[in-house]
């Protein structure tokens, strides 16, 4: 990635962008395909779907948004964001245990 200043580097970057474009399209197909083959285990399904989405977002953030070669001040900002985001999701997961065991009016549906 470098500092994006030299034309040679930029031309290399463009090839990387196109490769990532293909990877993102394939990633989308993979996610949809996983839906159609219907994995019985819900937890595994969710884990795989989020994993594929995370890889795709890493490619977008890392390369298209140049986060792999960014200045410290941006990393510091995002580190704070990541901290609060993780805290928010942590609280969410914690709160999930507070739901009473749900029973349906009409039995098992």
């Amino acid at each position, binding site marked *: 990635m470098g500092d994006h200043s030299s034309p040679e580097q930029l031309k290399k970057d463009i090839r990387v962008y196109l490769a990532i*474009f293909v990877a993102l399209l394939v990633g989308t197909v993979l*996610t949809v395909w996983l839906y159609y083959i219907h994995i019985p285990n819900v937890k595994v399904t969710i884990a795989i779907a989020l994993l594929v989405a995370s890889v795709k977002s890493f490619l977008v953030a890392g390369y298209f*948004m140049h986060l792999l070669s960014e200045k410290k*001040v941006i990393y510091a900002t995002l580190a704070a*964001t990541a901290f609060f*985001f993780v805290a928010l*999701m942590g609280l969410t997961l914690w709160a999930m245990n507070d739901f009473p065991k749900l029973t349906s009016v009409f039995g098992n549906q």
Partner: protein
Amino acid sequence: MEIPYTVTPRKDTGLYNAKVGIWLFLASEVMLFGALFSSYVLLRVGASFWPEGLLNIPIGTFNTWVLITSSVTVVMCWANLKLGNFNKARVYLGLTILCALGFVGIKTVEYNDKFTHYTIRFTNDVTAAAFLKEAYGNDDEATRSGVFANTYGVPDSKVVAKNKELPPPRFLEITGHLEGNPHFVTLKKLKAKNAETITFIPDALNQGKKEKGAAPDAAHDHKKVTVKMSELVYLSAYTPQRNTYFAIYFTLTGLHAAHVIGGALVMTYLFFTGRRWWQKAPEQYTNRIEVAGLFWHFVDLVWIFLFPVLYLL
């Protein structure tokens, strides 16, 4: 007064100001969408039933591709500006705007499908059975399990309170369209118009079923059935108030679509003023494109999570 650091980096940050600004903004956006994702998780785990298969997956997949393509074209626009190819960059920017409009257009079609798609419930199982016989020819277990949303299940308390004889063994819900495909019809509106009957076109059996071997019944001829208003306790389009799923679906996708529209407006402005900027201050224009691009990639990033969460899981 000239705005400082539009091109030259500030000494302390090492960046031009707009870049620090957009990242701070995106950080706040992460928390905004994060809060809504958190709401989604809690609503979903707290729900006794969560509908599946209500969205059109091929259309959603295609729209995901459209957005991904626009993310690539905007970064290509920026790279070409860096290389000094203004005309090529302009083409890429134009393509990005077209993709944005395409995405919003497809989303509008999807929304429109939901706003004209209805669910009805009957006062009791006898009227429901009569409806099934008229619409599908019989009222056996296969028909009942093939009706799209028959296991929606838990009746809302208001309906139970109003109708003491309820609940029937299972709340039979039938989905379909009203004649003429009107938007946002409710029982209240129909009653205000003193309507005595509605003409309902029920969906084919097994529509949207995820299980293999349950293909939509193409033979069903979408027969029109006249239903008396007095036989209905519930009628609703697939609107946010339909259920929790649609509430969070429209909140998340609506906010996302607002971001797409906002980004498209900014890029349209940069498209039409581009040549003037490029002649006057090419580096500043390139930076503007970079900042708009960063926002645009973020919008793409949000959709990368929204698509599997709302359409597939």
